């Protein structure tokens, strides 16, 4: 069974985007995201989406990864769009959906062209100067890495739990699905914590 993913796994390559320093990529993502959120204009939204697609093409990100990202935000986009339509009309709804897809695409470009460990190394470098203030760079980096990895793992548990409820003919009873889902997510978190402790990670 394939695991649904909101962000792409790293895809090795030698494109210009792959070769950019992590700091440049993360800063660009931050500025891009701020612009997408701050600029309220339909034409600008289409430009942002075009820029995101351009970055994906430049990075030679696979169509599968892009489709997965699009599928991942689809449900959220539909709900948000419906809400915006009701509140502010169709133009704002379409603009919001386009913005969400643009943001998802650039996030995929970042994760597909940057190994997680490279991001963790960069995070450690950036946070190290704040060690005197009590910051723990390795711990912060590990937490971010785990958060990235937890997304597909949690979605996989959700899919398995839903299938188990369906197999018992209980798909219309939310408790039959939600209770085991929550229990399994907590259990997985506990197991992961044990596994990290066993590897001596976070022991400092």
């Amino acid at each position: 069974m394939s695991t649904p993913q909101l962000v792409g796994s790293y895809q090795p390559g030698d494109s210009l985007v792959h070769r950019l320093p992590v700091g440049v990529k993360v800063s660009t993502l931050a500025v891009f995201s701020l612009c997408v959120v701050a600029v309220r204009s339909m034409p600008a939204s289409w430009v942002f989406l075009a820029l995101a697609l351009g970055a994906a093409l430049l990075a030679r990100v696979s169509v599968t990864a892009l489709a997965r990202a699009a599928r991942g935000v689809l449900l959220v986009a539909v709900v948000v769009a419906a809400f915006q339509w009701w509140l502010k009309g169709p133009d704002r709804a379409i603009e919001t959906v386009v913005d969400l897809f643009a943001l998802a695409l650039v996030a995929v470009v970042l994760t597909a062209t940057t190994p997680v460990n490279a991001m963790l190394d960069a995070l450690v470098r950036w946070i190290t100067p704040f060690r005197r203030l009590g910051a723990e760079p390795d711990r912060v980096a590990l937490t971010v890495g785990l958060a990235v990895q937890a997304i597909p793992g949690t979605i996989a548990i959700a899919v398995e739990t839903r299938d188990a409820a369906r197999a018992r003919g209980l798909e219309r009873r939310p408790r039959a699905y939600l209770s085991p889902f929550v229990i399994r997510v907590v259990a997985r978190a506990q197991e992961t914590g044990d596994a990290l402790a066993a590897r001596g990670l976070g022991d400092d």
Partner: protein
Amino acid sequence: MPTLTFDAAGVTVDTPHGPKVVLEPTTLELTERRVGVVGANGSGKSTLARLVNGLVTATTGRVVVDGVDVSKDPSRVRRRVGFVFTDPAAQVVMPTCVEDVELSLRRHVKGATARRARAIEMLASFGLADLADTSVHALSGGQRQMLALAGVLAVEPSVVVADEPTTLLDLANTRRVGDVLLGLEQQLVLVTHDLDLARRCDRVLVVEDGRIRYDGAPDAAVDDYVASVEAREGAGL
């Protein structure tokens, strides 16, 4: 070989119905290279294994790994004791194979290039070099368990504890993972339901109802375990 010492080490947990003894005070000295632990589900064998690297803390007595008291210096012990879990999905925490091994090496190898080279080397020794950049979600169960092993062994522990590492695997992968574990130079504590693997150890402990029922040569220990299971079945327990 390192020496694993259980000095009246026991574990009791609080439950809504009062304290429950998970492992009775146990005294052992394990110096053999391959120590097998067998027993029924819930018998206390995983607790015994987890005491070795401090994942579970003894509520009575103490556990000492090569002179280091686990409760006093757990992080030092964890640097010496690698742990392989039943479900590698919990143990493998990074998106790709090479990144997961690199995570283990973060505190041991400085510099991203050297770390990557060492991680690739580890993957190659487990036959996973071609899967270095593959998503961990795309691996088979056997490949994922081998990756977990690579991550554990990358930091060169002197003891490896494996808690039912083949339970979720098919026959071929059980044999493959078992061969790797039993062929390790390090001391191995292998908790298993696979009696063939247990028979290949140097010493086997049979755990029953939170105590060591039998401790001795593999064949005799496994025979004792099978006999005890059959006796329980015969008594309708």
